[in-house]
C-alpha cells in the first residue's frame, strides 16, 4: 500500500471521529439545556436512593397485638406482662370477648390476637395441657408466620419460667433434657445484617438502569416525532455514528449518577466497599452499554414516545421484579432462575453485591462479565441494524 493511500484513510477515520464528536456534543447540549429534566435526572434519584434504602426491609419489627384474657389469673397476667415488655409487640387493646378482638383485626388495627381461655391456670396446674389460641392476620403470610413465631417463643420462655420457678415443677423440669445442640450463627460480610448495606447498591443499580433505559428509549423516537431525525437522515452520518452518538452521552449520565450515588451511599449509609472500585466501574460501563442498547432498540421500533415509554417500562418492571433485590433469585423456580441470565439488572446487582460487600475479584464475577458483554453486543448490533435511514 502506498503511504499516500494510508494518509487518506487516516484522515477519513479522523473525519468520521470528528462527526461522532459533534453528535455527542449536540446530545450533551440538548441534555444540559433541558432545565426541567436535569434535576429530575440527578437529584430525584439520589433522594429516592436515600428514602427507599430505608424502606426496603422484610424485617418484622412491630406487631400490633390484642390480648383476650378470659382467665384473669396470676399466670395470664404474667404472660401479658411478658408480651408488653417485649420490643416486638405493642399491645393495642385487651377486650373481654373474642368478637371484639376480631373486630380489631377486621379494621386492621391489630395483626395478631392471643386468647387466654377460662381455667388456663387451673388446667396448667393439673397438667391438662392448657391451650392458648393465636389468631393471626395472614393476608401477608410471611409476616404472619414471623409474628406468630415471636409470640410462640415468648410463650415457650414463659413456660420455662413457670417450670423453673414453681418448686413442684422442678422435678418434672429436670426430666426435660436440655438442648444439647447449640446452634451458633454468624453472618459474614455483614455481621449485623444491616439492610442498607444490601439495599443501597441494589437500588442504585435499579435506578441507574431505570433512568438510562427510559431516557434512551424516548430519545430517538422523540427526534422522529418532532421530525428532526429527517435532518440527520439526509446527512452522510453513518448508522453506527448515530447510535454511538446517542449512547456515549447517556453512558456519561449513567456513570455520573452511579458516582454520585455511591458517594452518597458511602457518606450517608457508610456502605462497605471491600473490592476494587475500578472493577465496579469497569463492569458498570459494560452493563450500561447493554442497557442503553436495549433502550435504543426499543426506541427504533417505537412510533411514539408514549409507546416507547410503555415498552421500556414493561421491560424495566420485569427486570426489577426478577433481579433478586426484593426476593432472592435462589427462591425462584428453576426456569425463572435461568430467565434472570439475560436480565442486566440482576447481573449488576449480583456484581455490586459481590464486589462491594465480599470483595470479590475479577475471577469471581467473570460469568456476569461474559453474559453482560454478550448482551451489550447483541442489543447494540440490533440497535444499529434496526435504525433505518430511509423510511
Amino acid at each position, binding site marked *: 500500500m502506498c503511504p499516500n493511500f494510508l494518509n487518506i484513510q487516516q484522515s477519513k477515520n479522523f473525519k468520521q471521529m470528528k462527526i461522532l464528536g459533534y453528535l455527542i456534543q449536540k446530545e450533551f447540549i440538548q441534555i444540559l439545556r*433541558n432545565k*426541567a*429534566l436535569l434535576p*429530575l435526572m440527578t437529584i*430525584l434519584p439520589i433522594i*429516592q436512593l436515600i*428514602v427507599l434504602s*430505608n*424502606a426496603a*426491609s*422484610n*424485617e*418484622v419489627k412491630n406487631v*400490633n397485638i390484642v390480648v383476650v384474657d378470659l382467665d384473669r389469673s396470676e399466670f395470664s397476667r404474667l404472660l401479658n406482662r411478658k408480651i408488653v415488655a417485649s420490643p416486638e409487640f405493642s399491645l393495642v387493646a385487651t377486650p373481654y370477648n373474642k368478637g371484639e378482638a376480631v*373486630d380489631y383485626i*377486621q379494621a*386492621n388495627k391489630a395483626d395478631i390476637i392471643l386468647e387466654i381461655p377460662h381455667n388456663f391456670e387451673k388446667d396448667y396446674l393439673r397438667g391438662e*395441657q*392448657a391451650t*392458648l*389460641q*393465636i389468631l*393471626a392476620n*395472614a*393476608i401477608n*403470610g*410471611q*409476616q*404472619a408466620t414471623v409474628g*406468630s413465631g415471636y409470640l410462640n417463643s415468648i*410463650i415457650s420462655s*414463659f*413456660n420455662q419460667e413457670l417450670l423453673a420457678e414453681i418448686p413442684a*415443677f422442678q422435678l418434672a423440669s429436670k426430666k426435660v433434657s436440655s438442648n*444439647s*445442640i*447449640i*446452634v451458633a*450463627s*454468624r*453472618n*459474614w460480610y455483614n455481621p449485623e445484617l444491616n439492610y442498607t448495606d*444490601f439495599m443501597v447498591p441494589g437500588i442504585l443499580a435499579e435506578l441507574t438502569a431505570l433512568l438510562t433505559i427510559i431516557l434512551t428509549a424516548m430519545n430517538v423516537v422523540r427526534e422522529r416525532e418532532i421530525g428532526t431525525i429527517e435532518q440527520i437522515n439526509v446527512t452522510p452520518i453513518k448508522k453506527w455514528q448515530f447510535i454511538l452518538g446517542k449512547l456515549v452521552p447517556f453512558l456519561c449520565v449513567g456513570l455520573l449518577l452511579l458516582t454520585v450515588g455511591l458517594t452518597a451511599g458511602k457518606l450517608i449509609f457508610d456502605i462497605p466497599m471491600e473490592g476494587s472500585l475500578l472493577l465496579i466501574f469497569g463492569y458498570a460501563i459494560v452493563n450500561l452499554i447493554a442497557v442503553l442498547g436495549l433502550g435504543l432498540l426499543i426506541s427504533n421500533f417505537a412510533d411514539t414516545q*408514549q409507546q416507547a*415509554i*410503555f*415498552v421500556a*417500562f414493561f421491560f424495566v418492571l*420485569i427486570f426489577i*421484579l426478577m433481579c433478586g433485590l*426484593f*426476593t*432472592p433469585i*435462589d*427462591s*425462584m423456580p428453576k426456569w425463572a432462575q435461568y*430467565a434472570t441470565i439475560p436480565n442486566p439488572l440482576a447481573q449488576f446487582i449480583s456484581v455490586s453485591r459481590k464486589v462491594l*460487600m*465480599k470483595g470479590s475479584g475479577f475471577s*469471581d464475577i467473570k460469568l456476569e462479565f461474559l453474559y453482560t458483554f454478550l448482551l451489550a453486543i447483541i442489543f447494540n448490533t440490533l440497535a444499529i441494524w434496526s435504525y433505518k435511514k430511509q423510511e
Partner: protein
Amino acid sequence: MIKIFWAFVKKEIYHIIRDRRTLLILFGMPVVQVLLFGYAVTNEFQDTKIDILDLSRDKVSFQLIQHIKSSGHFEINQVLRSEQQMEQGFKEGKTKLVMIIPNDFSANFYNKDATVIQLITDGSDPNNANTLVQYASSMIADFQQERFQQNTNPFQVKIETRMLYNPQLESAYNFIPGTIALILLIISAMMTSLTIAREKELGTMEILLVSPLPPLLIILGKVTPYAILSFIDAVLVIVLGVFVFNVPIVGSLFFLLAMCLLYVVTALSLGTLISTVSKTQQDAMMRSLMGLMMPSMMLSGFIFPLASMPVILQYLGKIIPTTYFIEILKGIMLRGVGLNFIIFEIAVLTGMTLFFLLMTWRNFKIRLE
C-alpha cells in the same frame, strides 16, 4: 354538548386503539405482573445451595447431613475439607450458608454435652440470611428430637395457631390487591399525564383550546377512555386472582368495583395534575415515574411492611393514596368488611382526590404562554 363530548371521547379512543403496541402492553403488563408475582417472585425457597464443613466425619454427622438434605429446602453444593475453602463459595456466590460440624460432635451428642454447630451465612443478603438460619436451626432441632424421643412433660402450654383469612399462607392474597393498585396508577396517572403532555409537545393542544369545547370537557374527554381502560385492567387482575390463584372475594363485589372507580378518579386527577406542570412527555414521564410510581410501590406497604419502616417513612407512606387504596382492597376482598370498618380510609382517599382535582383546576391554563 353531550354529542360533541362523545365525538371527542371517540377521537381519543381511536388514538388508543390505533396504537396496537401500547394497547398490547396495557393488557399484557397486568397479566405478566400477576403471573410473575404468582409463580416466580416468592420468599419461600427450595434447593438453596449450602456447603458443609464436616470435621467430625462419622455416622451421626452423616445422618445429620442426610436429614438436612431430605427436606428439599437445601441442596449440598460441596463438602469442604478445611476452613480455608469456606470463603471461595461465598465469593463466587455459589453457596449461601456453611454449616460447620465440630469434630467432637457425635461423642458430645450422645453424652448430651453441649456441642456447637456453627452456621455461617452470606450476610450480603440479610433477608435471605435470616430465613436460612431459621430453617437450618429448626431442622437441626428436629434431628435432635428424632434421635431422643423426648419424654413429654405434662406441664406444657399448648399453642393453637390459626391463620385468619389466608390459612394456606398463599402469597397471592397479598400481591393481588397491590398489583391492582399499581396497574391502575400506571395506566390512569402515567398514561393521562403523557397523553396531555403529548398534545402540548406536538402543538395540538392549541388547536383543542381554540375549539368551542370548554377546557373542562377537553380534559374529561381525554381521561374518560383511560378510565375505562384501567377499569377493565382492574377487572382483569381480579379475574386472574380469583380463577388462577384462588383468591376469594369475601366482601361485596359491587363495593369493590365502586372503590376501584374512586381510585381511578384519584389516579386520573394525579395524572392531569402532573401534566399541567410538565411541558414535554419526557418531563411528565420522569415526574410520574420518580414522584409517583416508585414511592407508591415501595412506601405503600405493598412490598415492604409499613410498620417496620423508620417513622418518617411511615408518615410519608400515609400521604400516598395507594396506601389507603390497598387497605380498602384488602378489607373488602379478603376480610370481607363493610363500609363501617374502612370509612376512614375511604374518607381520606376521597379527600385526597378532591384536593388533587382542586389543584388541577387551579393549575390548568387555558391560555398559551
